């Protein structure tokens, strides 16, 4: 039932993409409505299928359809708890995006291609989750990558967009190759391409490590782990906002899904805790670097893209902890770490797509990406501002919203490191937790800046004055995501209880108890207790009490304090760059900062300054230290190969002759 629903959802979504290609002027309205309706219906089917698979306690749903034209191969699909959970995430976000999309794309050119590739993209992602065979998996993976390449390159009139899309394609292909090798090795040892035969393979520790690291590289590239993240802040800002929401909120999770499938289902880690240590290390670095780079951005979508790097880092911290505890036979803590990571996947999908959709509404109204040009939009777009605030609070890991719960679970897992025998891990894991705390507060700083610059203060440019509230459908999808952010923050025990099935399948251990609907007590009541709902209600109660007692019955509206000099304008406000300046100075080693001040003298009196120009660039060290060496290495390699390629036929015949002789020598 669930699997049929899942395949049906893929079919419906794919069909919805085919419709716009038949757009003709006569039926344009009909087709676009039909397309939107089908996309919504398909997402709902995916959502329902995911829920059914999670609720199901019977064995997994699986299906094999023989493909007559490919004798070696059949379409093997399977829906277990893990893929069901990610199906749920994809379905939920796609549902919100599908509602948002029609009103957003009014102003976008070539919308039929956009709709087509969006549908292919979503169905590709869903097919990845359903695949029970390495071939199908990789096919769907490439479907997802290629369709998203076309989405990134949608506004290809601009040179920078084409470049960003090309970098994205390059990195996506590289990730695909590493996954291919990793799965190829698994297929070699198991003798089949079917995922069932991959499950819990017992390999030598060297081969396990090799496959694991190849998979980490491949999936990590797609997920955006540092230093493989550089495509992310380039690709996300140029794609249309709902697509960014899908890419950042969902596509990165598909990579996480692949990694979980590989490391928790296929490989048997045994006692190789170093692998978990590597994941923990990379996750911690990604979280910190991601948020630090985010703070320096002034393009709102670029900023959000760097935050994805941060959140993927947090997810990998949870996974790393889980792997470490699994390798040291602490099943309960391994489960807790995995659940924290899985929960953060859902949370990040929700608040990140909320933020991207909010940013999209602002961009649609003002045609402005630059934080330094925004301001005061809370008066023009009060509802969007409110939903965006909920997104900001959630991503900054503040109680009682959902981001806090998953980070809290990660902290709780990390704090159990005193149970480990290894002294190094016992000190490094709390250190990673401290860096996670630093990440949280840096994220809060970043979102104070973002929210302050976009919505608060005075308008910094003309388009801000003409902005209007987003249309109803766009607001509806934001309301949906914002209320999900609150819901999953208030009822964590409920959610975790359903995730337990995944832990049961992958680690072989399910948490015995989570407490009740009010209190979340993952380890024991003595160790810790958290109640999101309790805090929300009590805080609401006290705040309303304080408000009704003490709020002044009348205000007097005056102009703000200007030290008695007057002349406060929108230009005298603090800018985003100024806001982040102390952070930039304290953590300056993390960026490649180029700062220049240029004094332009007045023409009449050369000793007087007419204007001062200040330029600041904070670039990513990853380009300098990682990509440029690679690029120059590739260049040198291809140049040296080019010397062999003279273009003369006789030379190639000589090569063939030499090759044949060598082969003969080897054979005989």
């Amino acid at each position, binding site marked *: 039932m669930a699997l049929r629903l899942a395949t049906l959802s893929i079919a419906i979504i794919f069909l919805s993409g085919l419709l716009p290609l038949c757009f003709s002027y006569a039926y344009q309205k009909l087709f676009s409505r039909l397309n939107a309706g089908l996309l919504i219906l398909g997402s709902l089917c995916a959502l329902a299928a995911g829920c059914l698979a999670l609720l199901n306690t019977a064995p997994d749903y699986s299906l094999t359809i023989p493909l007559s034209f490919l004798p070696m191969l059949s379409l093997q699909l399977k829906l277990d708890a893990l893929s069901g959970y990610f199906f749920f995430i994809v379905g939920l976000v796609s549902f919100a995006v599908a509602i948002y999309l029609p009103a957003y794309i009014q102003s976008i050119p070539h919308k039929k291609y956009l709709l087509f590739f969006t549908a292919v993209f979503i169905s590709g992602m869903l097919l990845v989750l359903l695949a029970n065979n390495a071939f199908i998996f990789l096919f769907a993976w490439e479907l997802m990558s290629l369709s998203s390449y076309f989405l990134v390159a949608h506004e290809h009139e601009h040179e920078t967009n084409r470049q960003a899309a090309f970098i994205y394609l390059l990195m996506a292909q590289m990730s695909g190759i590493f996954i291919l090798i990793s799965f190829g090795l698994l297929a070699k040892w198991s003798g089949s391409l079917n995922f069932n035969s991959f499950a819990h393979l017992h390999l030598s520790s060297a081969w396990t490590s090799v496959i694991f690291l190849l998979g980490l590289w491949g999936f990590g590239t797609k997920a955006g782990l540092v230093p493989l993240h550089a495509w992310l802040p380039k690709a996300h800002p140029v794609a249309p906002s709902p697509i960014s929401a899908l890419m950042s909120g969902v596509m990165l999770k598909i990579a996480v899904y692949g990694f979980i499938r590989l490391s928790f289902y296929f490989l048997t880690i045994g006692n190789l805790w170093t692998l978990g240590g590597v994941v923990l290390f990379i996750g911690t670095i990604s979280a910190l670097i991601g948020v630090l780079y985010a703070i320096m951005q002034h393009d709102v979508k670029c900023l959000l893209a760097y935050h994805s790097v941060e959140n993927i880092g947090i997810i990998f911290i949870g996974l790393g902890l889980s792997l470490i505890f699994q390798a040291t036979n602490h099943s309960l803590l391994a489960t807790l770490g995995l659940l924290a990571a899985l929960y953060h996947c859902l949370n990040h999908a929700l608040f990140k797509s909320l933020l991207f959709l909010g940013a999209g509404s602002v961009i649609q109204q003002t045609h402005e990406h630059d934080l330094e040009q925004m301001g*005061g939009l*809370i008066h023009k777009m009060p509802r969007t*501002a409110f939903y965006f605030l909920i997104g900001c*609070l959630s991503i900054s*890991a*503040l*109680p009682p919203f959902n981001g806090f719960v998953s980070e*809290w679970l990660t*902290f709780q897992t990390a*704090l159990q490191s*005193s149970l480990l025998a290894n*002294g190094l891990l016992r*000190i490094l894991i*709390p*250190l990673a*937790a*401290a*860096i996670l*705390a*630093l990440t*949280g*507060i840096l994220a*809060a*700083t970043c979102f*104070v800046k973002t*929210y*302050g610059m976009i*919505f*608060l*203060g005075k308008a910094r440019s003309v388009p801000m004055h003409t902005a209007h509230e987003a249309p109803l459908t766009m607001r509806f999808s934001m309301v949906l995501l914002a209320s999900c952010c609150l819901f999953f923050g208030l009822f964590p025990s409920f959610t975790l209880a359903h995730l337990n099935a995944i832990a049961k399948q992958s680690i072989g251990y399910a948490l015995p108890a989570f407490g009740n609907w009010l209190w979340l007590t993952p380890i024991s009541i*003595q*160790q*810790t*207790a*958290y*109640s999101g709902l309790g*805090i929300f209600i009590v*805080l609401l109660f*006290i*705040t309303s009490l*304080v408000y009704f007692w*003490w709020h*002044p019955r*009348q205000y*007097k*509206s*005056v*102009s*703000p*304090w200007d030290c008695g000099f007057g002349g406060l304008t929108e230009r*005298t*406000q*603090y800018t985003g760059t*100024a*806001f982040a*300046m*102390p*952070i930039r*100075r*304290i953590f300056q080693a993390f960026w490649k900062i180029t700062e220049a001040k240029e004094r332009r003298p007045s023409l009449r009196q050369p000793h007087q300054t007419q204007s001062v120009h200040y330029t600041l660039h904070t670039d990513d060290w990853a380009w300098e230290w990682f990509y440029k060496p690679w690029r120059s290495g590739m260049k040198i390699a291809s140049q040296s190969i080019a010397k062999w390629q003279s273009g003369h036929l006789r030379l190639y015949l000589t090569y063939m002759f030499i090759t044949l002789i060598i082969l003969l020598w080897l054979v005989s």
Partner: protein
Amino acid sequence: MMSRIVYSFLQTSLIIACAPLFVGFIKMLKCWLQNRSAPSVFQRYRDLRKLFHKQTIIAHHASWIFRFAPYLIFSITVLIASAIPLIISPSKTIGFTDVILIAGLFGLSRFFLALAALDIGTSFGGMGASREMTVATLAEPALMIAFFSLAMMASSTRLDVITTYLSAHSLWFNPSMLFVAIAFAMIAVAETGRIPVDNPATHLELTMIHEAMILEYSGRHLALIEWAAQIKLLIYITLFANLFLPFPLINQLSLSAMGLNGGIVIMKLLLLAFVLVLAETHLAKLRLFRVPLLLNMAFLLCLLGLLMHVITN
């Protein structure tokens, strides 16, 4: 159980009610030490009463965030106060005692204060918000590590369980605790905006941190924010007194034990007020970019404390 809830409730009210008194006492002590004539201990109550009766003025294009923030900030501080062990360790049912949650709630209140500061669109607000978030960026990880060390010792992140654990095992002379205690004092100074990180009595806008953020507030709004800041100071000092100083709380609900606890806590608080005043009189406010050095030291001390705990156990 029921009586513990009632006592926790009373204790929370006591913290809220006595916070201005404590700040007034610090002010008085400071004046005495500096050979000035001191205002009354109750001056802070008079200030609050005056502010509550004054007209509230608001800048022209303030949004709902500016108006709403004072109530939220005050409520969050009250909520945190309900989790603090002053005389008894509070009941879980009334206080949300998880230490990570406490750090998170302080973060929530700081988030809204910084947003409110940015709402008006003056430079001072932006400057204050930027500096406050910077200081928090440095202080919060150190605070978390301090809490982590305590949590790992007591193997619980619940403040009430930690307090009970500390009253059973007197640990204040433990080297790990000593490091964490020194660091916690530095963090507390930074988080509550005292010298050498911030000067609560400054009248120069350019050197302000906390005061710059609330420059636009007046009347009842200002009263609530000031009161919340006073409660926050008392919370940090109480935490320091009851977690890191000798003679921890006696974990009994009898009247005699509570009387003894109360007496000891008052002595500790007076002592800490004296130490704070001494430090504030002797030290000058640090330049903003010297603050990271202080807080990095706190972070490293916490880390050393944690390391020591890990090694010795």
